[in-house]
């Protein structure tokens, strides 16, 4: 029945990438709403942006979400960790690495746009070190030791590439009920542009 190593491989689809922002305690997400409306007006090539869901009233919640067909973008405050998040909804062909790259690139590109957005006055900035990657599908990737074992080397390889061989740490979400999630933290700070460059 095939190669046992292959069988253990977890298909990583519906990849989420969240870039943790700096100074998040005093962030005001209200000005984000007109910005996201403009993104919908502009419609970036290759994806369909649809609508905005505003959950600022919910503590430690999804923040402000730009709903798209292929994926959602948000400034998300889950776990009281404010970050720019990309949530890939549509399945993607290719390898796990391709899919990790796609989601990371989408999150980073969105983050760069927000950092450069004059209406936000430079208030939303990537902290430079912390990135969460998670798989939004409990059947593909239950939050278990088995998934961790199967995916660990891929995450490490991805982190090595992203952080260009500098030091980083990898930890995993421990609550088995939560999504399978890896917390990457680089020892030195990176700019969004530098990380985009690492992705090639």
């Amino acid at each position, binding site marked *: 029945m095939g190669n046992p190593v292959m069988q253990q491989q977890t*298909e990583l*689809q*519906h990849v989420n990438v969240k870039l943790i922002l700096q100074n998040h305690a005093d962030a005001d997400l209200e000005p984000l*709403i*007109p910005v996201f*409306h403009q993104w*919908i*007006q502009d*419609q970036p090539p290759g994806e*369909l942006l*649809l*609508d905005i*869901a*505003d*959950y*600022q*009233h*919910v*503590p*430690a*919640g*999804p923040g402000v*979400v730009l*709903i798209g*067909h292929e994926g*959602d973008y948000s400034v*998300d405050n*889950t*776990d009281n960790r404010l970050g720019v998040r990309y949530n890939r*909804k*549509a*399945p993607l062909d290719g390898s796990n690495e391709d899919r990790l790259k796609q989601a990371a690139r989408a999150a980073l590109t969105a983050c760069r746009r927000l950092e450069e957005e004059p209406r936000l006055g430079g208030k939303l900035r990537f902290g430079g070190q912390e990135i969460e990657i998670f798989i*939004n*599908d*409990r*059947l*593909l990737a239950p939050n278990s030791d088995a998934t961790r074992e199967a995916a660990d080397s891929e995450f490490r390889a991805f982190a090595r590439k992203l952080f260009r061989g500098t030091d980083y740490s990898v930890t995993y979400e421990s*609550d088995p*009920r*939560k*999504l399978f999630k890896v917390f990457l933290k680089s020892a030195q700070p990176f700019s969004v542009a530098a990380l985009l460059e690492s992705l090639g």
Partner: protein
Amino acid sequence: MKVSNANWAEKLAGKMPEHLAREIDIFETELTLRKQGKVDERVIAETRLRRGVYGQRYDNGQRHNGKAVQSVAYPSGSLTKGPNTMWDAPGMQRIKIPAGGLDAGQLETLADLAEEYSDGIAHVTTRQDFQLHYVHIEDTPSLMRRLAAAQITTREACGNSVRNVTACPYAGVCPDQAFDVTPYSKAMSKFLLGHPDCQNFGRKFKPSFSGCSQHACGLASMHDLGLIGVTRIEDGKEKRGFETYVGGGLGAVPYQAKLFDAFVPPEEILPLAQSIARVFAARGEKKNRSRARIKFLIQDLGIEKFRELVLEERKTLPHDPRWTEFVAEAETFEETPLRPAGKAPLLGTEAFQRWVKTNTRAQRQEGYVVVTITLPLGDITANQLRSLADIARRFTNETIRATVEQNIVLRWISQADLTEMHKALDAVGLADPGAGTIVDVVTCPGTDTCKLGISSSRGLSAELRKRLGEKSFQLDESVQGLHIKVSGCFNSCGQHHVADMGFYGVSRKMSGYAVPHFQVVLGGEWEQNGQSYGLPVIAVPSKNIPEVVSRLTGRYAASRRQGESFKDFIKRTGKVELKRMLEDLARPPADPSDRTYFSDWGDPREYGLLDMGVGECAGEVISPVEFDLMAAERELFEAQVAWEGGQVEQAGVTAYQSMLRAAKALVKIETQSVSDDPGQIVREFRARFYDTQKFFDPFAGGKFAQYLFTAQEKSSEPATQDSARYLIDEAQLFIDAAHSCYNRIATPVSA
């Protein structure tokens, strides 16, 4: 959309109740058939609505982006999931929670689904349901399977059906109740779910249960069927019963329910509901949607005549053991606490004291309280749901209920645990005080997600919460206890009629531009089961509504007479004076360059009505024939799947069954007395549709009917690879002909 959609059925096999698993398989097949163009868009619309799968704003493929109407190029192109409803457009999934009752595991399931299929938020509705938004239709079968594994169904959460059976969230623990109505409400919910007598309504039908008549909790007066628990002494013994009301309902014009019977014994509530359903199905309006609720039927007939018809129907009902099976158990039903009753001095921080004051309520059982978790706009995150599940397990036997005020209550909290519980809730942002006060604004989805929304009810509610929350504890006591409810349009899903201050969205022109407004509705009453409805006073731009609230509450606090309720204050003040008080707020801005009025709360786009679509409140009136024909299609599809999987005999039997089902569907247009016996079906079909040539195709004549006759003759021979294949093709042609035949009959050619 999810890669895992193909695998949930297998993963959860054996964990879902069998009938639910089967229903969801069927629904999934129906979706597949729609994609193949084999099911009409109207039929798939009502089919999904009856599974709680609603449309959402912009699903007609158009959206005003603030500058212009943009057409939304969904990848599946012109494929629809209903008239003018694009397949790929995000939709809403309503999840039925009978009596709002949940256990911890169910909260965890909702958390998972909110994360994986929606936007991370689960929303509690004004009828104790949950909703998830932005869900892709192709994810709904997986979502439903996971709910089924947690013993939850979405069946009949929307559409022209019996909606969630609601009940007072304090039932069983309320000091004022006659008795615990929970088991009766659950029995009714179970009995009416999918009941054949409830499948042919012209509109929805909403039942509710209350434990007493003086409080609002069950809102009996605004329901199609409202039952209030009462007791009386018979032969020296206390006997339970229900004061039963019919024909209430909100909507553009709210109706107060009428008393049907002052005392219906428990063993009669199910047959009575069934009889009412039959009368409603047979006599209710089907064409004019705006007069199809049962309230109009009762108005047209008069309550006496309606009662007479129902009681006559009752006499003819064949006995059903389920009517009474639950009664003995219901009499003794009681929830139990996890922790011993306690008493502790309610000392602590100021925040704790406030929370105790507004968010806890003594139970009839000494030493226990009900704790309310205030949810802003009814929203709760996935992580909060999981934390709440932990808290429920730690302090209770998972006695959790959703409320019609869009909150969640935990019952059976030992008073001794309150401090610890408050800490645990506070740690996850669930310890907001102000439950049931002016801050705890109730709201429908409005323009955020509803196709009919005119103004942003959620935007306004968030703003009111923010402003009132900041100062709520400085407000006058009398003002703190008022209720605000907001609907995005006149349909009143936010129940604005039964609030002290209600608002519903309307649009008005100012300086030549459309401006979002709310109609101010005053003097309604939440207490007494929502027994009096408010009246519209004046329409005011959305952006001025906070000032309306501030003026009205200020005046009430200042000029209130001893013990005067807000409703009485409104009555005493009078409409003329109220209007005068608010008039200046309705005028266009003095500075014409001030654009703030021209956009709505939380939505910076310039306001307009171009995004409104056709709502799905009523669903499509689909005849039972159309549903049966769809079922035949689905059976045929299953035959194909069996054939492809090498189960040739099974394929033959199923294909033949699908023809019988289609034939029976047609026969039922003329007579209901046809059984499942193939011989009888074919005989009736031959006499009514073949001999009369009604089934004849203009070109092929009676050829397709012959397929059925031949299939019947050969039905005892096991099918071969080839014969099954032929039979499947013939069945397809037969079913297509049945559709055409039905269309010819249903649309008579006009002269």
